[in-house]
């Protein structure tokens, strides 16, 4: 009989249990070493409280017998879209950081703690963060040190500071390094003014300095040629009250961090209001999208090039249950997420360079899933999007269209012709290498893979809206 479950490829570090994928269900084994903590979490009613208060992903004890080593098997609620910190904007990263600190403080109050501080343990439902790693929660031992301090620094704090102090977005560096941004690398670029901040001194400068110093010293004492004997730094207890103060002061500091470039204007931040869009075009597009979404009522709709989220929010109002937006611009994803958060929309926007989407990476290239492995959309919309790939990135038009069509069974693509001011601007300083970039060609390529359901040519413009349904193969 073939096995219908398998251990998630990203779940191998924690010896106390594994995440198990079983069809569409997410299970988790709790092994002997974590069984006592788990039992007391259930018996004390705290597990229930954590779930009810929205800290922890919904978790139920399941009666499955699939791993002999496991003392318990639990079933978790399935998160609609799994995202990684290198896909979050500043707003999401900051929200996840504060959530992590608040959750840790809440657990300490109840006599529990978190065994690590990895940003990958936090996911978003809409714009609300939620903790997904049950086995990171364990009993607090009086006087124990916060062993995850450096992990917290590299996975949460340094990426936020990079944007806040230097105005550089964390995403590409985080993705390259996977486990956050190395403290000692960031330390090299800390400006002098930061040497006057107590928080910077304690969490960044001193920590990096001691770390560098210890690395330089090496493992062997050069004078005696003997291995240096480790002096325990944790002999004296670290009082709980000091840990709580430390976490609270970190919280206060982080909640005051804002992107350095917050007031600067970027390419797309005023796109919606200033571009070639006029009311008439927006009205036609809105009617088209509303009727497309209302007909399908998709569970998950993806909005490629979501900008400030105008059409995403419209889709939610028209019947989509969840919308995931993607954009290249840090500011628009933050402003879209902020607006969604204010209004309680089931929307989330992530950073995406469509010409360089997130790869599968980590241990054996399987620890973190690629962008395409996580596609679960029932519908996709790509409005005024394809010219950014076909013209600006020289990606052949047929490849761009087929990529979008591959994402969902239904969708809408807006074609923007060469005479449109945005495309004209893109081409003004370069040779036009795109003889095939025209509406006729666009339609004929799309018809190869899909049936065109509706087509609306926007009057007095070079724009055309097309809704399609992928052909069954």
């Amino acid at each position: 009989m073939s096995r219908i479950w398998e251990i998630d490829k990203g779940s191998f570090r924690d010896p106390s249990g594994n995440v198990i994928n079983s069809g569409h269900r997410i299970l988790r084994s709790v092994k002997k070493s974590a069984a006592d903590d788990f039992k007391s979490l259930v018996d004390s009613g705290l597990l229930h409280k954590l779930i009810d208060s929205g800290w922890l992903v919904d978790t139920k004890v399941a009666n499955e017998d699939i791993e002999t080593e496991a003392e318990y098997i639990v079933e978790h609620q399935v998160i609609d879209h799994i995202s990684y910190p290198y896909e979050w904007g500043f707003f999401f990263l900051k929200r996840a950081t504060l959530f992590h600190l608040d959750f840790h403080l809440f657990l300490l109050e109840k006599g529990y703690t978190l065994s690590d501080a990895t940003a990958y343990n936090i996911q978003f439902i809409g714009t609300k963060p939620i903790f997904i790693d049950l086995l990171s929660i364990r009993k607090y031992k009086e006087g124990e040190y916060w062993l995850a301090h450096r992990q917290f620094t590299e996975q949460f704090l340094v990426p936020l500071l990079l944007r806040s102090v230097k105005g550089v977005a964390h995403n590409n560096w985080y993705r390259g390094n996977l486990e956050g941004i190395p403290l000692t690398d960031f330390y090299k670029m800390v400006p002098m003014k930061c040497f006057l901040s107590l928080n910077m001194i304690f969490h960044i400068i001193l920590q990096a300095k001691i770390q560098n110093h210890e690395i330089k010293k090496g493992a062997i004492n050069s004078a005696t040629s003997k291995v240096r004997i480790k002096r325990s730094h944790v002999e004296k207890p670290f009082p709980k009250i000091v840990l709580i103060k430390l976490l609270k002061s970190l919280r206060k500091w982080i909640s005051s961090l804002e992107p350095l470039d917050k007031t600067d204007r970027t390419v797309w931040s005023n796109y919606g209001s200033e571009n070639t869009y006029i009311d008439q075009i927006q009205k036609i597009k809105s009617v088209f999208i509303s009727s497309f979404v209302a007909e399908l009522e998709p569970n998950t709709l993806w909005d490629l090039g979501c900008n400030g989220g105008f059409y995403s929010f419209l889709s939610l109002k028209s019947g989509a249950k969840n919308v995931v937006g993607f954009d290249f611009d840090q500011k628009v994803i933050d402003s879209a997420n902020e607006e969604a958060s204010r209004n309680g929309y089931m929307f989330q926007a992530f950073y995406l360079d469509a010409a360089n989407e997130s790869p599968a990476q980590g241990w054996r290239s399987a620890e973190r899933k690629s962008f395409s492995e996580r596609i679960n959309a029932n519908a996709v919309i790509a409005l005024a999007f394809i010219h950014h790939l076909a013209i600006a990135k020289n990606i052949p038009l047929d490849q761009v269209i087929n990529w979008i069509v591959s994402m969902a069974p239904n969708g809408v693509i807006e074609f923007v012709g060469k005479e449109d001011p945005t495309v004209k601007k893109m081409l003004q300083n370069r040779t036009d290498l795109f003889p095939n970039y025209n509406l006729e060609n666009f339609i004929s390529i799309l018809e190869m893979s899909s049936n065109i359901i509706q087509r609306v040519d926007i009057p007095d413009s070079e724009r055309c809206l097309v809704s399609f349904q992928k052909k069954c193969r």
Partner: protein
Amino acid sequence: MKYCIKVVVIVIMLMPGMAFAYIDPGSASLILQSLLAALATIVTIVGTYYHKIKSFFSKKKEPSENAAEKLEYSDEKERDKKES
């Protein structure tokens, strides 16, 4: 107060070769935390003495609660002595 802490921290930073043996890179934060713990101990001790000195000077002016506590405490001591 903040200025004093800054000076202390900067002095610590400039100290050549701290007296810790080889550690893995993550232990830098543990060293810092042990410093924090030590600082907390100092603050507690100083706080206790400060409280004692303060209560010594304020005893004459307001003997109310502290005195009552002390009386109770000395009563208990005497009782213990008698019992033993």
